[in-house]
């Protein structure tokens, strides 16, 4: 593992551009800034082409002999298939509005991390082989030959983009840089150049149903462990329903919530909430993943993995689907699922059985976000809370890129937090809601070998947290994404020590007053609540 620089060193960022033009300055590939290659067996498990052994720092990447042809055909096919991609290759006027909006550019000062230049890495190849001006005028028309160095550079920088789409928000043409990155990754994926942190979860998801490879009996065991802890905290025994045919609602959460810390406390919150409202619902061991790392490899792979959710809803005979606190799952569910694997006409238009509310926005895809569901319960007075149990927390909220820019869910999480916590403070306006800054580890980049990249990428977000910590003493960063829950603990430890990380449902679970519960002396992490130390000793 490469050694990490200290925060003082890492935050020294030079924004002076190099003297040479970008085409003449080859990429300097550096340890700490990239992820390890995917394992051959993982890529082969889902029939990805050209799986082979290679190493990023090696001169020779063991590419297939006809790699150039594969790459150019890859572009060609996608130009024909995606009108959006073709338009994005042509219309940029290089105004630079996107340049300083990217967390990776802000934190590296590397011009190739400007979204405009990241896109130019691919556009220059497009021009050379697919436009008349590029073919004739070459470099003068911004075109360049596809060489191994050009390919390596493109790979390196397309895995330094988290597909967060903050730049797109500021683009006057609405060019979606995330889609350009996605296509760039799709094409390099044709050459077997994927990363392990994506390849592993994709293979696991395909075979077992979730990124971690949790098998049915493992999921059951974990849920029982969580139920044990809930019993210890509340005195109430919960029996989580799994694969229950005929349940009204299928619940799908990111698998990180059933394994990671602090994700598991969020899962405990889900279990407590569903129990308290008496929802007729079920978890599934087949569709046991909300996230979809396939989305970071190719559209086809994402579609294949996503198909399990509707298939399972059909098999179990549920009426509609409720989705947990996950980030990119919602970009997929909100913007792609219905046309990829739907419309799910075997499901009903979602109606909350507790409040009777019709979820109009979920009419077609039949998937409801848990924040909408809970906010509705609270609005109708169906839940009782004791927010004082969260009084030791000063909370701020990080809008996940995908729920914010991918589906526009802004108010519900805030409404829920304010209902269960007495101390809430917003980060500066230009860093929240649709302008939220990425955690720096999204789109499958939350490995450990690229920690420098992650800490850099999360620097703008961490700076905003630091701002509210210094002004209001914020000590809890709430979020609604499993990747956030995995990415933020090391990020906070590094830049803003003293700030903890929690999913909103952990806060909900702690404040929720359940029927028949004993006096709470511990939170869901089994830590003694402030002021309850004596009760604990008795």
């Amino acid at each position, binding site marked *: 593992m490469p050694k990490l620089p200290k925060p003082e060193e890492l935050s020294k960022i030079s924004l002076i551009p190099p003297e040479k033009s970008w085409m003449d300055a080859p990429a300097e590939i550096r340890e700490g800034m990239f992820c390890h290659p995917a394992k051959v067996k993982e890529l082969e498990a889902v029939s990805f082409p050209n799986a082979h052994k290679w190493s990023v720092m090696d001169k020779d990447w063991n590419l297939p002999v006809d790699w150039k042809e594969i790459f150019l055909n890859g572009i060609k096919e996608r130009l024909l298939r995606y009108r959006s991609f073709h338009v994005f290759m042509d219309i940029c006027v290089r105004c630079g509005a996107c340049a300083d909006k990217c967390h990776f550019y802000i934190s590296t000062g590397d011009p190739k991390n400007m979204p405009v230049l990241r896109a130019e890495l691919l556009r220059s190849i497009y021009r050379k082989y697919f436009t008349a001006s590029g073919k004739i005028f070459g470099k003068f028309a911004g075109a360049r030959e596809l060489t191994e160095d050009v390919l390596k550079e493109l790979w390196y920088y397309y895995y330094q983009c988290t597909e967060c789409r903050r730049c797109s928000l500021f683009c006057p043409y609405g060019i979606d840089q995330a889609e350009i990155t996605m296509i760039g990754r799709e094409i390099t994926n044709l050459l077997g150049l994927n990363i*392990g942190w994506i390849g592993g979860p994709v293979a696991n998801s395909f075979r077992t149903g979730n990124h*971690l490879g949790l098998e049915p009996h493992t999921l059951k065991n974990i849920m029982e*462990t969580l139920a044990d802890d809930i019993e210890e905290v509340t005195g109430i025994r919960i029996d989580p329903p799994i694969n229950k045919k005929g349940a009204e609602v299928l619940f799908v959460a990111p698998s990180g919530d059933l394994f990671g810390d602090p994700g598991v406390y969020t899962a405990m919150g889900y279990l407590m909430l569903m129990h308290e409202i008496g929802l007729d619902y079920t978890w599934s061991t087949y569709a046991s993943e909300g996230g979809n790392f396939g989305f970071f490899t190719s559209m086809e792979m994402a579609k294949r993995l996503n198909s399990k959710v509707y298939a399972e809803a059909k098999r179990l005979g549920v009426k509609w689907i409720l989705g947990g606190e996950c980030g990119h799952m919602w970009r997929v569910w909100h913007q792609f699922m219905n046309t990829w694997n739907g419309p799910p006409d075997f499901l009903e238009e979602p109606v909350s059985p507790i409040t009777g509310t019709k979820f109009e926005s979920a009419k077609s895809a039949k998937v409801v976000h848990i924040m909408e569901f809970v906010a509705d319960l609270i609005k109708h007075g169906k839940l009782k809370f004791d927010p004082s149990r969260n009084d030791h927390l000063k909370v701020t909220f990080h809008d996940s890129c995908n729920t914010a820019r991918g589906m526009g869910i802004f108010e519900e999480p805030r409404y829920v937090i304010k209902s269960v916590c007495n101390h809430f403070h917003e980060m500066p306006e230009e860093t929240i809601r649709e302008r939220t800054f990425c955690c720096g580890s999204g789109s499958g980049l939350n490995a450990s070998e690229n920690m420098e990249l992650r800490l850099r990428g999360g620097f703008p977000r961490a700076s905003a947290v630091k701002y509210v910590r210094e002004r209001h003493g914020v000590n809890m960063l709430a979020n609604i994404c499993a990747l956030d829950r995995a990415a933020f603990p090391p990020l906070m430890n590094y830049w803003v020590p003293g700030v903890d990380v929690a999913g909103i449902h952990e806060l909900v679970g702690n404040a929720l007053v359940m029927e028949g519960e004993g006096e709470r002396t511990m939170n869901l992490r089994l830590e003694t609540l402030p002021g309850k130390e004596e009760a604990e000793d008795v």
Partner: protein
Amino acid sequence: MPMYDFQGKQIELDDDGFLLNLDDWSKELAIDMAGKEGIELTEAHWEVINFLKDYYKKYQIAPMIKVLVKEMGKMMGKDKGNTKYLYQLFPAGPAVQACKYAGLPKPTGCV
């Protein structure tokens, strides 16, 4: 792909130094790997490693740290069922270091 030279055999590792094939694991290999990182495997270490191996056999994944702590506590008593104790044995983190010596793959995803 890195290789590990052990008793004249080349053993395949992944880029994080974990065994690529669980079948390559042996007690002697674990002792050798730990030794190279300056750790002498004692009875206490083996308790953890054996627990991990048994758990993996049953569940096909390394246990999350919460489960490891809890189960160690149940089996070996409260003084061993805590994070501090496990970190004393495996300073680089029980999830990483102990799993590596036990030959288990590292979990990937949103964790």
